[in-house]
């Protein structure tokens, strides 16, 4: 063979040798921690802050401690809530200062019937959710990573100014799941509480005890969506389980914060009246008759567009069961006008707060008491 010319076999051998070395070099460097992240990843990471609730398992593996899913995350892995990411053994949250929704709403939208009725609130929501409800009405925001949504920069310093613009005193967290952006909630709450701003949260309640304690310390009202009273249905409909939600309800009740419970009735999933009765009985026994219970009408959305709206008769049956069992404050939500939207005095039956949807048309409460018989109506009225 001529000098300077290599055989085909040698050429292929050399290509394989040098090629594999070339490919494995960055991997080796990355393993040794010598290779920096690319510019985009770095930029994204810089916007995130280290999360509060996680533990390091081994090496770079971490476990999120926010909710009972306990996501086990390897390097660069994202939790199922889509807001937490493991960067080299530190769990970061991307849900900080970047809500995708800021909206001025009546506080009744949570829904709540006994918490400052008729007041306006500023609702803040960041993308992401730890649950995957088949009927989610805000799935475009809740089933997406916050950094991939159109967001609004809303740091804590902006809150008092924004609220005073519209003479609002309440910050509410709704639309998506507040549990997944609780670091942001805590920051907003600690900053704004000194300035007289009040906080109310609507959530699914799928959260661990430690983070829940922190939320309870800053918010004064909670609306928990109890999606069903059967673990199988819960798993099928939301990918979560029932027990932790019941524990959350108990913990909030124990803490003395204001609590309301919502049950969205989805035809063919949780419209079994036996289940509804069981749920009402459990609530009566464990949190008492004074915790308001809202039966909400399902509207076809997301993955359940094939189902019809909840029939009015089903809602009314559930409403009657709630009353029969002995709950004092049962409501029908997402259906209006309906007598189930009103607040009645459990003692004399007077309609105390009359509503059309979220609008109050008549309020007969006097200092938290029935104007007719003087019975004390539980709630946060001032």
């Amino acid at each position: 063979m001529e000098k300077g010319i290599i055989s085909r076999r040698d050429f292929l051998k050399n290509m394989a040798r040098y090629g594999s070395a070339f490919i494995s070099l960055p991997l080796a460097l990355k393993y040794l921690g010598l290779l920096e992240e690319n510019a985009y990843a770095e930029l994204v990471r810089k916007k995130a802050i280290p999360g509060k609730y996680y533990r390091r398992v081994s090496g770079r593996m971490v476990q999120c401690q926010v909710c009972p899913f306990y996501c086990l995350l390897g390097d660069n892995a994202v939790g199922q809530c889509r807001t937490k990411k493991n960067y080299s053994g530190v769990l970061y949250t991307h849900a900080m200062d970047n809500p995708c929704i800021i909206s001025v709403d009546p506080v009744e939208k949570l829904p709540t019937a006994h918490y400052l009725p008729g007041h306006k609130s500023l609702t803040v929501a960041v993308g992401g959710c730890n649950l995957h409800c088949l009927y989610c009405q805000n799935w475009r925001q809740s089933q997406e990573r916050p950094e991939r949504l159109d967001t609004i920069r809303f740091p804590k310093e902006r809150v008092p100014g924004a609220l005073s613009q519209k003479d609002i005193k309440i910050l509410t967290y709704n639309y998506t799941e507040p549990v997944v952006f609780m670091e942001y909630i805590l920051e907003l709450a600690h900053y704004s509480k000194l300035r007289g701003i009040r906080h109310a949260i609507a959530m699914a309640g799928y959260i661990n005890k430690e983070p829940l304690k922190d939320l309870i310390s800053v918010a004064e009202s909670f609306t928990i969506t109890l999606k069903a009273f059967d673990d199988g249905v819960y798993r099928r409909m939301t990918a979560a389980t029932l027990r932790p939600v019941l524990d959350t309800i108990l913990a909030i009740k124990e803490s003395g914060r204001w609590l309301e419970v919502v049950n969205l009735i989805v035809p063919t999933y949780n419209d079994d009246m036996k289940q509804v009765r069981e749920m009402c009985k459990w609530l009566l026994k464990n949190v008492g008759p004074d915790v308001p219970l809202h039966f909400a009408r399902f509207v076809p959305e997301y993955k359940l567009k094939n189902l019809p709206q909840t029939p009015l008769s089903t809602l009314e049956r559930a409403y009657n069961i709630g009353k029969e069992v002995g709950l004092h404050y049962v409501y029908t939500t997402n259906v209006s006008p309906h007598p189930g939207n009103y607040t009645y005095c459990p003692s004399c039956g007077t309609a105390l707060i009359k509503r059309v949807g979220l609008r109050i048309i008549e309020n007969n409460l006097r200092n938290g008491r029935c104007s007719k018989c003087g019975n004390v109506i539980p709630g946060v009225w001032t």
Partner: protein
Amino acid sequence: MGFKKRWCFPGMLVLIMLGFLLGGGILQSPVLYGDEVLSLQNREDPAQRLISDMRAINRLKHRISFWNLFNGLNLSREQIEELIAINTEYKEKLQESVAKAIKVLSESRASLEKWEQAIRDGSLPEERMKEAGRASRITKEFRQQFKDIKEPFLARLNDVFTDAQKEVIKGFKPCVVPPNDLRDPIRVGQASSNEYAVRMLKRIRSIPSQKFSFALDRIVDVHLDKISRRYRLTDDEIAQERQRMRELLKKVYYMDDVDFEMNKEELADEFKYKDKLEVLRDDLRNIQQELYRTQKVRDPVGTSKIVRYFLDPEIIPLLQYRLNLLQSN
């Protein structure tokens, strides 16, 4: 072969006769029968037809409005039954009065016809004049009498509905397509009429900054083109609107995200063009509402929307239909 010669002539004759009767008859009958047939053909006057069609459409629209309102009220079975009972009773009362009215009104009509004949001929007979005046008064009184029949039902109708339902009826405007808050139960009490305008403003805010100045002119031009076609604006008005729109869009574009989100409803209101005529109409509407409030005290039956929609014998079969539907479910 085939035909025998002797059948040819009568056969032809029969065929010609048949042809004349079937085809020629249509063509030649006006000629033969002259004006009488022409007047028969023109008996359905197009103007009359138009009027009757318009009337039918208006009645249909009223019925559609009724259904839209009905669907937005979530009436219970008991409420529907009570409405049927009230309307059946009202129908009976109405029929009694109608029988009386027909008799009296036919007399009045005769008097008025005689009076017309008299004044057509140029004479003003005293007796006929008095008779015509009386007849005219009687028709007015009858209108009032029919209103009086409705009066006792008003209180009963009011009792059928809950306060929340009354609130919905009060705010209801006749419509063929129901508004958002009647269509979507989630949006009751929170549906914004500015949704489209807010969406437009958001789109404008998402335009890249290097393209904005060009896009601004385009958007303003399109907007002016649209409104000037609709409202026939003068040159001065167009110039004013151009200036206003440019300033508004610049303000919206350079606005902080948080400020925009907090004020989007108000901005959307500003974004909508308000024509001078519409502003005047708004003023007029406010005056009308004031008038309505005053009228309501004096004439509760005539101004009540509940009476307008729910005291009508025609709705009895509609309610019954809905009640059956409810029972079958």
